[in-house]
């Protein structure tokens, strides 16, 4: 029951928000519902036991003729993504309070609608339900970008749409294929886990899912929709995409790819790792010379996600010894979400005051906005993984497992700590340091809701960095269980 409340609360909020066509009212209602959802999350968290079991399980027959059930539950892996979603949505809603959006009711309704879709993705234990959630999360963001986006939004959205729909279709094919192979004729995840596909079949299913997830994250070379979309989307859209939505891809790999087709993953993990690691270096190097800060952060996100992906495949290949890597993925999903939302919010604050994110046009903001300078710096430090911040825990565990898998890959992936420092500090310097110019002298420091959002993010960055155990212990048992499950299946096959 808690789970249903959790998933449908934002949907109810979406309907109510959509019904009330007033700018301020829809903002407030959206915020209220996102906070209610957060409260519901906390109550779920209180009842959650950090063992490997699936909890709060609901399983209702839905479309019986096709073997589709409303089957969902929460384990240590889901809980991380749920926490991420439900912490970030209120922050994202709050971050919009200084903006006025046309058709605000539709705008906020779409955000809440998307939240429901995301929560469905992160809890679904039925392939069909997972797919519904996947699309339900995608469609609202498509509209948010297309209706409220910036320059060239239609063209850019077309690309985004083509990419993601293509990915979704491959995944749908994969799901239907698994369904057809399933003697029980249903979409149940446990039945999928129990399937005995030969390595040839597994290879096909691997690619069907992998392309969908790789586009969503995105992994090189499936990424070119991302910088354009992030840049053109309205700030909250960018935050939703980068903070939460890309974790659908990561979550998908962990929940629907590793345990379902372990042989397929084993056959292709090496290639997937190479792509991921190329992505780290490639995107970092591109970030060096970006002129638009938003685009720079977009590329940095590709680099960071590349490391997460590499960590997944490395720890998978290491078997039960790969627990550090998958735990790193868990922490880094949270950290990356929090940090990237912080970065995009800072850039939104700047562009809403100065109407530019062009690095060359900025400078000297630290002088006129010391509060922003401090919070921005803390977020940058989290992003470059300074020990004591959240970013370090994740990157340390991820690099550890990649190194464990292959020392050279670890060394190359490790370049991210140098390259990341280069482009992040370059951006920070050009935007915040130096002298003010005619434009930036007019800048005013953060206040009100902006302070609340940025302070919250900074506190999360430091608390997670100093006491990561709070997060690590939530997922440890489930991660361990998952790796054992995969191992068993692999040894059973061979």
């Amino acid at each position: 029951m808690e789970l249903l409340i959790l998933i449908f609360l934002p949907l109810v909020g979406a309907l109510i928000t959509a019904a009330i066509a007033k700018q301020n009212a829809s903002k407030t209602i959206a915020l209220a519902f996102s906070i209610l959802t957060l409260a519901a999350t906390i109550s779920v968290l209180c009842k959650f036991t950090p063992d490997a079991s699936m909890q709060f399980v609901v399983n209702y027959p839905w479309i019986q003729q096709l073997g589709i059930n409303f089957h969902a539950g929460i384990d240590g892996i889901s809980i991380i993504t749920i926490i991420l979603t439900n912490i970030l949505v209120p922050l994202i809603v709050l971050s919009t309070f200084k903006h006025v959006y046309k058709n605000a009711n539709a705008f906020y309704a779409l955000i809440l609608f998307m939240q429901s879709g995301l929560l469905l993705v992160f809890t679904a234990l039925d392939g069909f339900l997972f797919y519904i959630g996947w699309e339900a999360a995608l469609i609202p963001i498509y509209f948010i970008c297309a209706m409220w986006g910036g320059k060239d939004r239609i063209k850019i959205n077309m690309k985004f749409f083509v990419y993601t729909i293509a990915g979704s279709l491959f995944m749908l094919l994969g799901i239907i294929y698994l369904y057809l192979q399933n003697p029980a004729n249903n979409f149940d995840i446990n039945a999928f886990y129990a399937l005995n596909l030969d390595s040839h079949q597994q290879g096909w299913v691997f690619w069907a899912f992998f392309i969908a997830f790789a586009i969503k994250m995105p992994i090189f070379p499936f990424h070119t929709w991302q910088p354009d979309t992030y840049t053109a989307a309205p700030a909250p859209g960018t935050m939703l995409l980068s903070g939460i939505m890309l974790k659908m891809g990561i979550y998908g790999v962990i929940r629907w790819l590793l345990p379902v087709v372990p042989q397929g993953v084993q056959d292709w993990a090496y290639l997937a790792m190479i792509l991921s690691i190329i992505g780290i270096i490639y995107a970092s190097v591109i970030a060096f010379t970006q002129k638009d800060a938003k685009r720079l952060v977009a590329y940095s996100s590709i680099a960071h996600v590349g490391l997460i992906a590499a960590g997944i495949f490395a720890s998978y290949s290491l078997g039960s010894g790969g627990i550090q890597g998958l735990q790193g993925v868990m922490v880094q999903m949270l950290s990356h979400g929090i940090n990237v939302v912080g970065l995009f919010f800072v850039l939104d604050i700047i562009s809403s005051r100065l109407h530019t994110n062009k690095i060359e046009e900025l400078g000297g903001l630290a002088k006129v906005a010391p509060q922003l300078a401090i919070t921005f710096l803390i977020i940058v430090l989290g992003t470059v993984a300074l020990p004591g911040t959240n970013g370090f825990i994740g990157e340390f565990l991820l690099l550890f497992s990649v190194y464990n898998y292959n020392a050279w890959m670890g060394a190359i992936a490790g370049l991210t700590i140098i390259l990341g420092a280069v482009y992040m500090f370059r951006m920070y310097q050009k935007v915040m340091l130096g002298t003010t110019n005619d434009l930036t002298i007019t800048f005013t420091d953060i206040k009100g809701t902006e302070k609340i959002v940025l302070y919250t993010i900074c506190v999360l960055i430091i608390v997670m960095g100093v006491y990561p155990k709070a997060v690590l212990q939530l997922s440890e048992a489930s991660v361990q269980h998952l790796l054992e499950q995969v191992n068993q299946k692999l040894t059973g096959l061979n």
Partner: protein
Amino acid sequence: MINSLLWLIPLLPLLGFVINGLGRNTLSKSLIGIIGSGVILASFTLSIAMFFELGAGSEKQFTVDLFDWISAGNLHIPLSFLYDPLSSIMLLIITGVGFLIHIYSIGYMHEDAGFGKFFSYLNLFIFFMLILVLGSNYIVMFIGWEGVGLCSYLLIGFWYTNGNYASAAKKAFVMNRIGDLGFLLGVFLIFMTFGSVEFAKVFPQAAGMMPGTATITFITLLLFVGACGKSAQLPLFTWLPDAMAGPTPVSALIHAATMVTAGIYMIARSSILFDLAPHTQDVIAIIGTATALIAAIIALTQTDIKKVLAYSTVSQLGYMFLGLGVGAYTGSFFHVITHAFFKALLFLGAGSVIHAMHHEQDMRHMGGLKSKLKITFATMMIGTIAIAGLPPFSGFFSKDEILAHAFENHKVLWAIGLFTAFLTAFYMFRMMYLTFFGKYRGTHHAESHIHESPKTMTFPLIVLAILAAIGGLINIPHVFGGNAWLGHWLAGAGIAQHELSLDHTTEFALMGVSVLAALSATVYAYTKYVKNAHVPVADEGKRSILAKISYNKFYLDEIYDMIIRKPLDAFSGFFYRIIDKKLIDGLVNGLGWTANEGSKGLRLLQSGNVGFYIFMMVFGIVALLLYTYLSIA
């Protein structure tokens, strides 16, 4: 007391950081100064008390566990501290010299608008530095290691409105990060090999291993890469001279006395590993010697008083690495201590000169200051004699110990080290003569304002001058009838000790040669800069080729720019414009066009009305739910 109160030593500076950070705009300057220095004094007092407790007791290693920090599978990294003879001395240096520099800063930074911010950063630095030396494993050490890098970034860029200063800060952070990657990879390999990153678990296992195995060589090389970044060794030293952009107390504390010696501390801490890796030791000795020589050559022609000291620091750090490379762990650490005294003194003295000259740092505009800045001159002279290696001041003993070990192991490296000692004495006395002797060469207007610094600034100078003079006493070698106290003390921390096998005649001869070298350099500098009143030419003036190379720092910055930064930027543009935009996007757009053409029919459904879309979505969901309800019913 050690077990129960050790955590207070780093916590107090952290507290100072928080209070001064939050109250930087509201608290009065005097209160900020008192809090900032007070917490360090408290930590210093505790460090002294614990030092004596450690000396009195028989137990030499105390491990204090705070909490489980990172834990995943078989990887457990507790946040825990190790207090032993090695860290006990580091604590004394950091809090002791740190306290003096805090006091000095009260005077030096008094007019600065960022007074509160400055003290909060200084306190934060001390906190991270203490974590670095207290960590009981490599990862806790790494917290401090990167944390001091952050503070260095913040303090180099303290006057961030100057674009060059901000760039210098960034450069320092990035070059340190290059080293940090090496450190991190080394730590990974340590975990793979020993199944732990705790010193107490790694070293006993390593002690039983064969020397020269590939794994240990790789581990130590990677750790050494880390040390090269932090302790400014070739090829990563170019950030340190630029770091002089920071306020002078920062240069004294971070870029001379403490942070930059972290690499030496780390290697001394891991001496058991390095002793097993003769190849790595050779690399360290060669890099150290080369760095010492090159930095000394650069220092010969610099005209900015802080730049001379900066290159001198790089050069002295090179000495310490030479010492590590030839197994003189105690000698190197001894030099860390004496260097902390005399180099902090010299930087603070330079700060006092700069303060008096109203931010003039160019020695060509100084001269004849000795009558006006009596205390500054006298104390700096002591520091200069100490660094030049003239007996009986501290630098003589520590440098001699390193050179004697070098002589025993590698005669060539010893010869270069000796030559570098000659250069050191020359450029240091050159600096003193240009600054304090001869005629004043600045403007008349400035001359009338020259005055000795306030007591808050001269007091630390005097204390440090005393330490620079007598600091050598802690490790008087047997040849002088001393008991080499430091060596015995450090043996308690498991630092490898290698006794010299030279006879006393050779030892005395070696000392005689190096003292002679230093003295002749002093005389030569005196003739050139005092007697002949030579003044370095203006920037655009004519120089010989050698002087040009030295003055332009071997063009290292330009070379790095050409072989690293420019190609990376070119790749960046190529990846972005060609591969991303043309190649991958071209493919995707081709697909998109096809899809677009094929879907023209479906367009009729797209009215563009968002309300309609939402309505359809909600309708669809309601229909599905209704269906569910009906099928259950």
